[in-house]
């Protein structure tokens, strides 16, 4: 247990000292503030554009914004935050393969699976922290300006999007154990997400695709119940476990 904890401590020290923590916090705080800000500014922007739009025959009437506008923005923007997160952390394994920093700790007798576990814990906690921060900020502003009760199944929608992020992170972990270079890791993880979209196109199989977890819009307005997402939640959770479980034997036999 002690080697795992000390390696984990090293991981946290790394994010703190290499500036990744600051970038991560700024990123998620910015995204958290952007959602209510865009909602708040929409009527004003529309007013500014109304003259131009009137010329092309569009009539701008009174625009009503509420917490729902802000939550819709949240689910529109969070994929960008996830992409930025992936770009920041995609080299978490490959950088160590390239520089050879793992060699020395491995010669000290650190079991290889503990490297996978420590990095998994770091990635999941950083994602949970950043995502939670973004959510809390949006939630706070929304409660201040409007009323959050208007959004139905809010916490469930938030939770399944978080799970989608966890799945993407587990893909990063698995591809990092298989590949040497972070560009390949990003491409393969991105490709897998794309495949899950295509999977969602098949009507009968759609409910099982992890990509469904990103579709929180119909949950918020109450058009869909939480039950419609259970299959995708189960599949995504199982895939996460499989990804980490596959990484361990692969790393154990990796030539360093």
């Amino acid at each position, binding site marked *: 247990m*002690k*080697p795992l*904890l*000390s*390696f984990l*401590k*090293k991981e946290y*020290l*790394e994010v703190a*000292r*290499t500036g990744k923590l600051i970038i991560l916090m700024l990123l998620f705080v910015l995204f958290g503030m952007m959602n209510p800000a865009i909602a708040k500014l929409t009527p004003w922007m529309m007013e500014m554009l109304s003259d131009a739009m009137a010329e092309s025959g569009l009539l701008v009437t009174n625009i009503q914004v509420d917490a729902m506008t802000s939550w819709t923005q949240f689910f529109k923007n969070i994929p960008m935050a996830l992409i930025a997160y992936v770009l920041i952390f995609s080299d978490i394994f490959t950088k160590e393969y390239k*520089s*050879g*920093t793992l*060699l*020395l*700790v*491995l*010669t*000290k*007798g*650190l*079991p*290889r699976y503990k490297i996978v576990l420590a990095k998994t814990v770091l990635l999941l906690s950083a994602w949970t922290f950043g995502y939670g921060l973004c959510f809390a900020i949006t939630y706070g502003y929304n409660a201040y300006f409007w009323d959050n009760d208007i959004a139905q199944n809010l916490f469930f929608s938030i939770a399944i999007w978080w799970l989608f992020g966890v799945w993407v992170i587990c893909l990063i972990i698995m591809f990092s154990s298989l590949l040497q270079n972070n560009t390949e890791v990003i491409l393969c993880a991105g490709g897998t997400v794309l495949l899950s979209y295509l999977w969602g196109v098949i009507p009968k199989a759609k409910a099982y695709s992890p990509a469904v977890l990103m579709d929180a819009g119909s949950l918020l307005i109450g058009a869909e119940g939480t039950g419609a997402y259970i299959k995708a939640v189960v599949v995504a959770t199982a895939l996460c476990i499989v990804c980490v479980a596959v990484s361990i034997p692969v790393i*154990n*036999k*990796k*030539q*360093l």
Partner: protein
Amino acid sequence: MDVLTIQNLKKKFGSKEVLCGLDLSVPEHSIFGFIGKNGAGKTTTMKAILGFLRSDSGEIHVMGEKVHFGQTGTNRYIGYLPDVPEFYSYMTPTEYLTLCGEVCGMNKADIAARSKELLDLVGLGQECRRIKGFSRGMKQRLGIAQALLNRPKLLICDEPTSALDPAGRKEILDILLAARQQTTVLFSTHILSDVERICTEAAFLHNGKIAMQGTIAQLRNKRASDGFIIETEKKGAADTLIKAFGDLKRTEQTVLVFHGGEDRFFSIMQYVAENRMSIQRMERIEPTLESLFLEVTT
């Protein structure tokens, strides 16, 4: 007792056979020089000892325990210094040694005491900066400190002096010499003066096999003499000698070299005396590791 034994180790990269049946044994408390040309397979052998490389066949034992690829159980006996050691650059030397100590299960007080002792030994005791700003020599010294941290039975150094200036090289060699009290040192190199300075034993790696192994004295004795040099005063005398003794080789206008036994030497001396030839010098070529190395590897 042998700390390390390697039997019939083979490794291919694609179609290139880097190691083809390497046998090696390293006795306890020796400083073992592992000599070979660039690309001879020294690093490959070391990585196989550490379990970082899958060998095609053969067995490696460290302290009598078999090394398995990917599993680092035997590494608890080993301290390793790679040719270019890479550290987590955002840490200070003490933080790095603490991480290493915790990973190998040392207790807190021992880590603190041992880190201080080793950092003083390698001359980094006063260094509080992060590793980011370290020179290559400083990193090499920190590498030795981390390698010795858990009191390994075997210290493996991969070309520890190759990239250093003469002062840095001397420091590293002195540290390795001091480390001999506590451990066995296996170090690869192609700098033969380093081997002559500190090693008790050495092995030459050539064509994927050990071409020669033994103590430094044994290696030198493999060839009692490398031959003789005869330098004549005039070119004409050298010409006469070459005509009389076909096995003489000319290296310069007036310099002749021959490889052969004492009898031959005496008959040349006799010929010189009888013909009253004027000779500048006649001397025995002392066998050096360099000449051995060249003989083995060419």
